């Protein structure tokens, strides 16, 4: 560590092929440690990533059913009960980061045949809509049920974009995903509240504002954070809707 160059210190000249022997040994050891270290770091960092859950597109299980489109306030698809299967309400999204407000408004209250691909995580299902067609042989005289109020709740969890979290992207949540989720919501994909505690056994909620209307930019600063918020919960067939009163929202972490 002397500041004085010494005669014995090996001296390397980059443009010469000859490298002093002790340096060669030193540098070879360094090269091996460097490459090996990078390999080990990759193994350590990559193999210990957090579990993104089991959400995903269900390409093998395409969706095609007749029913009614409603805005609640985001487009949902209501399917009548059929024999033993009870009536169901599906959240909808378009291709990519697009919603389906267009087709939902155009076909409001007339029976349609809807084709698409389900994106599913546990009891969260969203249909990526491929095609919506007015149909004659639809469910005639189908009257979807009214929402059942389940009272006021204080929920803690995260606001996610429903499509990515359902499995269009894994993991589709967390701060790394915030900007992406923001873009999804801007494009019209419904926000979903992922609660850490269940209401009536369910932890995923389609979100609306406290009056049941569409959420706007006020949601942006809360997106992807762990928050606590109060609001009314209601049930639409098997779908839970959370009318969040964002004025009560508090960032927990």
């Amino acid at each position, binding site marked *: *560590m002397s*500041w*004085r*160059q*010494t*005669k014995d*210190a*090996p*001296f*390397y*000249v*980059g*443009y*010469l*092929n000859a*490298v002093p022997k*002790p*340096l060669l040994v030193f540098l070879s050891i*360094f*090269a091996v440690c*460097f*490459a090996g270290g*990078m*390999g080990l*770091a*990759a*193994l*350590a*960092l*990559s*193999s*210990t*990533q*957090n*579990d*993104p859950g*089991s*959400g995903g597109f269900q390409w093998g299980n395409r969706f095609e059913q007749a029913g009614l489109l409603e805005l609640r306030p985001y487009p949902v698809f209501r399917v009548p009960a059929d024999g033993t299967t009870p009536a169901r309400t599906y959240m909808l999204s378009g291709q*990519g*980061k*697009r919603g389906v407000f267009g087709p939902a408004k155009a076909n409001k209250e007339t029976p349609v045949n809807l084709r698409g691909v389900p994106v599913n995580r546990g009891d969260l299902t969203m249909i990526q809509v491929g095609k919506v067609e007015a149909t004659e042989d639809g469910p005639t005289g189908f009257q979807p049920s009214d929402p059942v109020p389940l009272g006021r709740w204080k929920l803690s969890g995260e606001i996610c974009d429903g499509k990515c979290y359902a499995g269009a*992207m*894994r*993991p589709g949540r*967390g*701060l790394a995903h*915030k*900007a*992406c989720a*923001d*873009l*999804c919501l*801007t*494009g019209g994909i419904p926000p979903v509240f992922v609660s850490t505690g269940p209401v009536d056994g369910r932890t995923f909620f389609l979100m609306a504002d406290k009056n049941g209307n569409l959420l706007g930019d006020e949601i*942006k*600063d809360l*997106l*992807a*954070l762990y928050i606590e918020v109060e609001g009314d919960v209601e049930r639409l067939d098997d779908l839970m809707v959370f009318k969040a009163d964002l004025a009560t929202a508090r*960032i927990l972490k």
Partner: protein
Amino acid sequence: MSVQYMPVLWNRNKIFYDAVLLIAVGLYLFVFIRVAPAFEDVSKPIDGAILRMRAFGSCAFLMLTIILCIGPLARLDRRFLPLLYNRRHFGVLTAGIAAVHANYVLGWYFNFSPTDKYAALLSSNTSYGQVLGFPFESLGIAALLILFVLAATSHDFWLSFLGAPIWKALHMSIYAAYAFVVLHVAFGALQGPADPIFTGVVAASVVLVCGLHFMTGRMEAARERGEETAKASLQENGWVVAGDLDDIDEDCAKVVTLNEDERVAIFKYDGKLSAITNACAHQNGPLGEGKVLWGCITCPWHGYQYNLADGRAPAPFTEKISTYRLKLIGSTVLLDPNALPPGTHVDPVEIGGAA
């Protein structure tokens, strides 16, 4: 192109250096993307695009860490000096890897939407007022821009075009890039679900980079304190006592610090002494830590060479550095602290012939 920026030609060492670099980076990416997922304990793997963006992002971060450690390591132990040589390639490769990372981010998180992806990158998260949820992407963009500028100006052409001081100042912004990247991950990936290993790696990187710079800083300070005596002993009309003849090894130099940014290297060779500035005309490399090879002072950083008597690079090169006058009384070396214009010839002091 003049001879001045003639690149040091390819040789075995450079090929070996670059080969090791490519192998290490290739191994990292291969293990991260292909091998490690087999050891994961997950319900379903994360998406390929996200896996790749993490692989390339963390690879660039580790590479940046190593680049910043090479400098101080080479000062603490000369055996690391050869690593300085091709740091240019290291840096350019890092910028490339970081760009691939950014490209995956754009092509995945900011794609598939009616909004243009570049517009989306800048506009979709604007929560600049909060720490949690801060648009950490912008910090990555800042770092990437710096890395690009440095990669683009890394060639010696720019060094000679801009001049060493400006070029050097520009390239010091690598530290800003590192700071931006650390903040990028601190506000981004590290805020996510707890990942002790990644947190540990980032913390270790910061400790290593800061620690090594702190140590070399202390070492240089101690060196300077030692030189205070030389400064204090201005004698004989301003001549400085530079130390004893025996302090200097044959074909090597002793460095005398005149003040904060003026150091002089006194070389001993062939029974003679010559003094030149310690700063290499190439990138201000410490010439005094170099050696005399084939009658020329050889810089330890990139091997630029200078004649001893006049500080001029041998033809066809044209670099010039300042020389200094010396005197020998008994075995005490005296130095005239007034630098002569670069390239001025000074007769070397004959060791045997002194009075």
